[in-house]
């Protein structure tokens, strides 16, 4: 169903000198899917996100979003087309407050990012902003600097900033990395609830197989820049080849 196809990658490849970071990646993501991506360090997961969002140009292959070729389009334009992404290391505005950071995303989404006369703290924006913070569990930190957030909070803010852009496709890069074990599931619970409520097509890259098992409905396994398995979490994660590639053991 071409209407439901959100993201399509065709033979996407990228090398850095001798290192092949992406090797002919071909995949399709349909609307409403919740896809987990697993792979060992250096298997090409983050590179893939960088390629899709235009931070890197592929040497070969094409990326299609909603049926339109967007290969190599820079991040700013990709975001405007409707793909938003969060980062392994949260990319925050350390000297702005949590609320201000979110309001900037909301302003960008409304096309008012370059307005220089009307205030950022506008009536139309503050309520939705606070509401969104509430959903992400960040309301208490609204007026604190982003740099003062605890690790899990930083992750959630990073994701909230992307979510606020009302994307059609949300890419999350290791949403629980750096988060303590106690908080991991709390963060994912919050996140998945929000994602499910808005029926947002989501792809999340994860290191932790348990998290992927629990929250995704489809799993892609990466190894050495290629997709080596694609299917139901139970099946894929039990596959000995996948386990060997990701964990180093069966």
């Amino acid at each position, binding site marked *: 169903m071409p209407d439901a196809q959100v993201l399509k990658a065709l033979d996407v490849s990228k090398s850095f000198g001798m290192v092949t970071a992406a090797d002919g990646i071909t995949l399709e993501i349909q609307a409403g899917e919740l896809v987990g991506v697993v792979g060992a360090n250096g298997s090409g997961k983050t590179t893939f996100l960088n390629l899709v969002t235009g931070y890197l140009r592929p040497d070969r292959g094409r990326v299609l979003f909603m049926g339109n070729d967007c290969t190599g389009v820079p991040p700013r334009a990709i975001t405007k087309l409707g793909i938003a992404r969060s980062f392994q290391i949260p990319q925050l505005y350390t*000297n702005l407050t949590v609320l201000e950071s979110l309001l900037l995303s909301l302003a960008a989404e409304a096309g008012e*990012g*370059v307005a*220089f006369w*009307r205030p*950022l*703290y506008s009536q139309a924006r503050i309520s939705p902003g606070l509401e969104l913070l509430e959903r992400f569990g960040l309301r208490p930190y609204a007026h604190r600097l982003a740099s003062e957030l605890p690790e899990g909070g930083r992750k959630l803010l990073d994701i909230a900033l992307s979510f606020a852009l009302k994307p059609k496709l949300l890419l999350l890069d290791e949403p629980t990395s750096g988060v303590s074990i106690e908080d991991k599931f709390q963060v994912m619970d919050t996140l998945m609830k929000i994602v499910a409520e808005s029926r947002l097509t989501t792809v999340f890259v994860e290191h932790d197989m348990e998290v992927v098992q629990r929250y995704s409905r489809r799993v892609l396994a990466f190894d050495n820049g290629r997709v080596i398995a694609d299917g139901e979490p139970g099946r894929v994660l039990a596959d000995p080849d996948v386990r060997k590639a990701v964990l180093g053991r069966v």
Partner: protein
Amino acid sequence: MGAWMSWTPLVGAALLVAVPAVLPDWIVFIVALALAKFMAVLAVALFLRAGMVSFGHAMFYAVGAYTVGFGVKWFGLRDIVLLIPLGALLGAAFAALVGLVMARYREVFFAMLNLAFSMMLYGVLLKLYWITAGTDGLSAGLPTFLGYAPSRESLRVFLYYTTLVVTVIVVFGVYRFLASPLGFYLKAMADNEIRIEYSGESVRHVVYVTYVLSGALGGIGGVLAGFTVGHIVPEYSFWIQSGDFVFVALLGGYTSVVGPLVGSIAFEFIRTYASKYFPNEWQMVLGIIMLAIILFRPGGLWAIYEEVVGRFGRRAREAKRA
């Protein structure tokens, strides 16, 4: 601390209004010049917020000053109410042109390319002496205020209050700018350009718009300075002038709008004395103060003031409780 801080702008404004009434002419001159230069300092401060230094903003200040110079010389334009918006416009236009190149750069290149452009302008102003009168300079003469030509005695006062009114308007405008999404993006730029790009906004655009605005600010300052000093020379675009603006932004504290104002007034007084009595050591003193600020009190005078007021307010509250 809040109560004390909200009194400050009112007290400050009242003091500034009272200046010509109670203080002698030469002080009025210094404060007027300081306010004029404050506009250019503000332009530099905007960029410092974004983590960028411009070593060349004197060029917009020069554009403003020469707007007066040429306006008077070629068109007989002396009305300040006309020349101020004209200077702002020309400053903005020049910035719009230079900004096309400038907006792609950050950090080192931004600082030094600005220097290069400003020194290019200086070179042009200096060498094309048959147009600009080179180092001899142009004379601003006596301005008129909406057609009214004040007497020589009251000119100083008229100019001062005009400058003050313009200052208030500019401060208001800049506050609104800083409270807008673009203003916040300016601050966010210093932290994280990647996040801005991944929000769908263009950092280059943020820089460009701010640059054009800063050109307008510099131009306004140049017009006011041109009339206040009365004499317009290529040195308005020299790197030392740009360096002074940067110094004052640092001295006053660039995170606020008022900091540069305070810094500019302080600087103008110090400069008047120091450069007369210590011409060969003046730069060194500036350098040492700058070092001290960078190493120990990066927030500048305004941050020191806030700290002092904060401590004072705390002690007052504790005393009340006890």
